[in-house]
């Protein structure tokens, strides 16, 4: 029963979604299930936050290695949580001047707004930016023309890297307009429209078949691995 009822729930919600695609009368149900899903997603955020809190609290109380950083995480977590839940620094909106709870917790100037723009924003953006350094290091160490396939990959990357900046246009600026396909931007356009499109399309077709097969297995109860290892 522990896996049969969840499977029946999964199958029911899944088939409602499928039915809505074909039967207009089922579209209202799709909306309802979608809204339930949205509410569950919000509960999942709460679950995620609570899990993080419990994990770091456990780490601190056990004085495990790096517990000081867990303390920093918890302080950042609690401050952001309090700022958002209590809407600190949020004025009452113009339409409801006596009700500060009606304001948006992300209002410009609020504590949450400050945390987002001056902590979350720079840290997040810089973490992504770090990859520019690692990708350049990888280009130097790992990108070798060892065989035909690797050479094709390398030459393509070369052309696209040049074709996507002014360098490519400048280097092939003397090519007559009738032969623009032979310029770096022209070759880049062809690579993207033909070679890249063909390869991506083949991969997409394969993935689509894989997703459809997996979804069917889930809905028909053949695959119940998402429920964990202990069955009925």
């Amino acid at each position, binding site marked *: 029963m522990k896996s049969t009822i969840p499977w029946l729930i999964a199958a029911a919600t899944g088939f409602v979604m499928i039915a809505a695609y074909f039967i207009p009368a089922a579209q209202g149900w799709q909306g309802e299930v979608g809204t339930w899903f949205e509410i569950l997603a919000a509960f999942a955020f709460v679950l995620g936050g609570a899990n993080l809190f419990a994990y770091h609290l456990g780490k601190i109380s056990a004085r495990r290695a790096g517990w000081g950083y867990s303390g920093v995480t918890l302080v950042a977590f609690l401050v952001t949580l309090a700022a958002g839940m209590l809407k600190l620094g949020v004025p009452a909106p113009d339409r409801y001047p006596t009700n500060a709870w009606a304001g948006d917790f992300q209002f410009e100037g609020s504590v949450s707004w400050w945390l987002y723009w001056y902590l979350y924003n720079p840290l997040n953006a810089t973490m992504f930016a770090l990859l520019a350094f690692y990708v350049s290091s990888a280009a130097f160490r790992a990108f070798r023309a060892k065989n035909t396939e690797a050479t094709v990959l390398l030459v393509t990357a070369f052309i696209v890297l040049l074709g996507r900046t002014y360098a490519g246009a400048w280097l092939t600026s003397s090519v007559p307009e009738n032969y623009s396909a032979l310029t770096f931007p022209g070759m880049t356009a062809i690579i993207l429209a033909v070679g890249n499109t063909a390869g991506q399309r083949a991969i997409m077709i394969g993935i*689509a078949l894989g997703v459809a097969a997996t979804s069917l297995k889930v809905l028909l109860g053949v695959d119940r691995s998402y429920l964990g290892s202990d069955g009925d």
Partner: protein
Amino acid sequence: MNRETLGWTVVLLIGALGLFGRAMSKPEGMGKVYIKAVRIAPDSPTDTRTTFTKVEPKDSEAIVSVPRTVGVWIAALGTLAIFSFLYRDNVFYKLAESVFVGVTAAWAMVLGFWESIVDKLLRNLAPGLMRAWALPGLSDKQEPNYLYIVPLILGIMLLWRLVPRGAWIARWPLAVVVGTFAGLKLVNFLDADFVSQIRNTIIPLIVVVNGKVDPWASLRNTGLLVGVLSSLTYFFFSVEHKGFVGNVSRVGVWFLMVTFGASFAFTVMGRIALLAARVEFLFNDWLWLIDPGDKRPKGW
């Protein structure tokens, strides 16, 4: 003090002195954020409350905002702390990383609470209470919809995962999530990524424009068809890749290599763009070395 620590101490000291010198060398300083007071309800004759909004320093009413200026400095130091990982893992990076994790998790939680639990669940279960509290704009006609007890119960069941016993309880809401995705993806992947992609590949191999054969377009379409078929052949493992099939599959591999080469180049491009944005933040918003948008008065 070993050589490396000494070296870094010198570098940090030079950096601090440089910043101090830069801040002191010009009366306008650097890294400051300007705001001005604006009315929350500009059209109201009675509501005279004000709030602050960011403006450019050129604005005649601009005043320096201390919290936002501190924010820019913290953002700049946070940026440098993350960059410090490039040299080696260190305490500054770990601190920045810990702050980031805490803020992100709480942000998602707060957002989920206000946008869904309040705006969807409680709006439907207790509209009167919500109207009096956080949703004053809620229509008077809105009646309680007790069907929403179902997602409430499922949500509580999901939170049961936090309890050491009875983990199976959380499977029911998980089943809703998995079932919803499975149902949606089954149809939409087949439509958009399978049927439509086949349809997009059925194209004329000889393209005729105004009664004349367009050789470039014909070549492009032929290349596309050959590329898709040969790449698919490479992924088709039910037939041994020997002889003709082997050769076709080899062509498919070349097409895939072109795909991966383009992806690599685009990845490089994307990462450099993100780095450029961070560097521009440091030079423009913090150090005031450049003013690409011409937002500060001349000479600053």
